[in-house]
């Protein structure tokens, strides 16, 4: 065996592709550009509601960094007077407090009146979030949404909420600031790859 078997050639090609992608991701702004492209151009116009999608919460009640970012963006949009209602989503983990309620408590601390905050604690997937937000807002006659989530997730979340008969204005929660640190770029690419795979799955399942 001189190492030129078909299996070796396939492994070598996959390995080469992996190394090239790794180096391009770490040492070029590719991940940032892709993220910007997936975010689109945010349209910050007055809408019927601000919907902040769930991120993750620990069983002890600590919001994940991404969950906190989304909440901060939602609070900022409300304080700019872009919508009269702030919808906060997210279930709990392992019997701990729910993400939506922890977020609501923080929003109240920022001076947002309790009657302007709606929470939904049961939806566990983006698809479920769209269904439950529709049920929550339908009776209020809301039609236009400012949808807050990270840029990669918007590509999947936006069509789901459009299917739920909303006019959606996507607002990325990511700080759209280019990082020179290879580790940050790789982390950003990881999120994007995950979201692209999620988008493909939703397409194949016919959800979007």
């Amino acid at each position, binding site marked *: 065996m001189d*190492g030129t078997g078909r299996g070796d050639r396939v492994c070598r090609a*996959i390995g080469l592709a992996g190394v090239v992608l790794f180096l391009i991701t770490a*040492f070029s702004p590719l991940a940032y550009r892709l993220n910007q492209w997936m975010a689109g151009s945010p349209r910050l116009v007055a809408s019927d509601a601000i919907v902040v999608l769930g991120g993750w919460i620990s069983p002890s009640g600590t919001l994940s960094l991404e969950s906190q970012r989304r909440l901060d963006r939602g609070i900022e949009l409300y304080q700019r007077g872009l919508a009269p209602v702030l919808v906060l989503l997210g279930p709990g983990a392992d019997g701990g407090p729910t993400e939506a309620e922890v977020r609501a408590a923080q929003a109240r601390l920022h001076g947002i009146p309790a009657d302007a905050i709606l929470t939904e604690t049961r939806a566990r997937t983006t698809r479920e979030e769209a269904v439950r937000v529709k049920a929550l807002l339908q009776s209020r006659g809301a039609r236009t949404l400012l949808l807050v989530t990270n840029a990669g997730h918007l590509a999947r979340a936006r069509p789901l909420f459009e299917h739920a008969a909303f006019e959606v204005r996507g607002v990325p929660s990511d700080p759209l600031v280019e990082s020179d640190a290879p580790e940050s770029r790789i982390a950003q690419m990881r999120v994007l790859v995950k979201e692209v795979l999620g988008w493909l799955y939703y397409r194949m399942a016919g959800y979007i």
Partner: protein
Amino acid sequence: MEATFIAALAGLTSIGAYYVGARALGLPSARLGAAVGKMLESIGMVLIFLAVNLTASVLIVLAARGLTGTFVSAYAADDAVWLGLSLIQGLAFQAWRGSAAESSEPSRG
């Protein structure tokens, strides 16, 4: 700046390793290309294991959701530990293939 520093330092240590290999250890420079090819094969095998592991974990989560009707989180498929585990699996598998190829060489005359 950080990326440039890291790339430059990695370049310097690679050149240093080449000189240590070629001068101090007497390794043949002509075999470096073949060695890089072997390295790519090993990385390819690691990536194949990674793809199989992630695909299997996603399919198991989806099957569990479908069969039990309850929500099963897909976070298990999104854990960085898969990269380390796939590294161990892929390198072990490549070493196994390599040792099998070596042991079969004399019998082929």
